């Protein structure tokens, strides 16, 4: 086949002009490697977001006191949910359970002469079912702890490490602000919360103890986590909760919500919107850098065309048609971009692995290969066609006379 013979010509040209080949391949490698790293990093970041959403629970709805923008937890200072709100929400069709809790952020914690700060949550027993997170050691807060306003606590692993290093904290007394609590259990490890905070720097105490003895908020509740039976019910239930709360809080149609409801969907949106600019920037770099490689390719190929005029003239003289010359040079470009694309992906993955060894989440999948394949073909075609056509359009007689 003539086409294979001409491809053979391209291959031999690529292997004979080593410096030129090396320069072009290098430019493409840099471009495609950058793109690969960026694909691996953004995919890794997306995977992390998904994991966090999963941690949050696909069947959970969080109710925050206070309106306005979504942010971290609502603290007792803005608490405005009532016991009636909780009871009404419990009666919504599809709701499995509602777990109210009090929140105080960055409370001073003391054990002996060691200090730390931690989030302190006042919780009921159903907290562990609502968060699918109980005690990994010892006991959890019980209903009777709540009835008796017990001064007991379950400590998160970060807080435990800060205060006790590797010693067993169970049975020890710690001071939260000025109140002494006995540690009865260690909380299961959770990792990061959806918004990226350390969910293990946490101390749980009974809801009633928090409301009356520590946080001085006997009437209102900071937050509540609602769990539905099926994730598909989340949307409807969230709407119902909103209706009930607006009615219970006597909000007029023109008034804004004095609470905030967040579902997995909204959390995804929030996280994505904050990472959007960075992702966009990364993609921009990821796309521009192979384009720069393409421009290098075009420059060097144009130089090659002008250096090889007499060769082109000779080929035309012995019978090459214009399309044969176009094909030959385009095939050269494509061979170079494919080679660059292949090594670019490999090097890109290597760099991504280095990133991951520094703790950056990455994802290694088939997509970067596909992206690199498509991108390098496009670059080869787009930036190779002009030099190839230029080569073919040379007047054979004058090209022949070039030295």
């Amino acid at each position, binding site marked *: 086949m003539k086409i294979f013979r001409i491809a053979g010509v391209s291959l031999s040209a690529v292997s004979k002009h080593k410096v030129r080949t090396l320069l072009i391949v290098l430019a493409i490698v840099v471009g495609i490697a950058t793109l690969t790293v960026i694909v691996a990093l953004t995919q890794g970041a997306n995977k992390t977001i998904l994991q966090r959403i999963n941690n949050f629970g696909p069947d959970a709805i969080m109710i925050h006191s206070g309106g306005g923008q979504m942010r971290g937890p609502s603290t007792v200072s803005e608490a405005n949910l009532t016991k009636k709100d909780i009871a009404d929400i419990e009666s919504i069709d599809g709701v499995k359970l509602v777990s109210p809790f009090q929140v105080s952020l960055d409370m001073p914690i003391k054990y002996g002469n060691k200090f730390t700060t931690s989030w302190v949550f006042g919780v009921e027993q159903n907290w562990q079912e609502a968060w699918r997170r109980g005690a990994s050691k010892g006991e959890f807060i019980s209903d009777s702890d709540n009835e008796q306003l017990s001064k007991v606590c379950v400590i998160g692993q970060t807080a435990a490490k800060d205060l006790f290093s590797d010693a067993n904290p169970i049975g020890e007394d710690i001071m939260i602000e000025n109140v002494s609590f006995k540690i009865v259990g260690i909380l299961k490890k959770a990792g990061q919360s959806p918004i990226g905070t350390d969910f293990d720097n946490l101390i749980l105490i009974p809801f009633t103890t928090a409301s009356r003895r520590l946080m001085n908020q006997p009437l209102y509740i900071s937050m509540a986590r609602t769990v539905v039976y099926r994730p598909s019910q989340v949307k409807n239930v969230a709407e119902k909760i909103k209706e009930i709360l607006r009615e219970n809080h006597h909000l007029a149609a023109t008034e804004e919500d004095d609470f905030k409801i967040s579902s997995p969907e909204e959390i995804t949106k929030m996280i994505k919107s904050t990472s959007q600019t960075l992702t966009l920037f990364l993609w921009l770099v990821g796309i521009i850098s192979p384009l720069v490689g393409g421009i290098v390719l075009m420059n060097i190929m144009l130089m090659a065309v002008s250096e090889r005029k007499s060769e082109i003239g000779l080929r035309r003289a012995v019978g090459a048609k214009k399309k044969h010359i176009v094909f030959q040079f385009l095939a050269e470009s494509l061979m170079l971009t494919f080679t660059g694309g292949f090594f670019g992906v490999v090097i890109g993955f290597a760099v991504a692995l280095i990133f991951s060894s520094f703790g950056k989440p990455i994802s290694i999948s088939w997509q970067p290969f596909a992206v690199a394949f498509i991108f390098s073909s496009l670059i080869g075609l787009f930036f190779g066609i002009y030099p190839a056509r230029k080569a073919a359009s040379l*007047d054979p007689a004058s090209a022949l006379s070039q030295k």
Partner: protein
Amino acid sequence: MIEFNDIAKSFTSGAIKTEVLKGVSFKVDKGEFVSIMAPSGTGKTTLLNILGCLMKATSGSYLFEGHDIETLNDDQLSEIRNKKIGFVFQTFNLLEKTSTLDNVLLPLVYSDIYPADASKKATGLLEAVGLKERIHYKPNELSGGQQQRVAIARALINDPAVILADEPTGNLDSGSAKEIMEIFGTLHKEGRTIIVVTHNINVARSSDRIIYLKDGKVEKEEVLK
């Protein structure tokens, strides 16, 4: 076989129009060995380019084996060059870094049929020009005379109707030049049609007939054999 009727060629550069050929007419029959004698700068290269279908005339008609060359498109001209014309250039025009054998095979890259025995044929042609031992040499490892012999083998690979040589001994010493002209003589005896364009009267004298070109026109013809 080749018929030039009143061929004229002019080049325009800006406002300046240069008439290089001003109505050239001649015929070459099959099996002839013809020289076209022209001093440098008298349109010799232009004439050769038109003869070799690398360029079209401004006016006049050029018949090649009955085809009116002026009516053919670029692809058709490429096919004529590929199948019917074997070029031998003054500067040999071999591909660098490419073996002698592959240089000879070059025209076959672009032909519709690639004979199964192509390599054998090319080796045979290299043997005929005395380069059997050098089929894997690169052009820079060969002398000028050897390079020109490779070029002749390349010109023959497609069994062309005509061999078109442009100052074939121009870059050679007299010994090599003699060898090359002897090869042309042999090819002529085998019945091939050869046209040599030259300004060297000694080269021209080895052909059957000399067409003298002067000031863009045929000045006279001289039959030698």
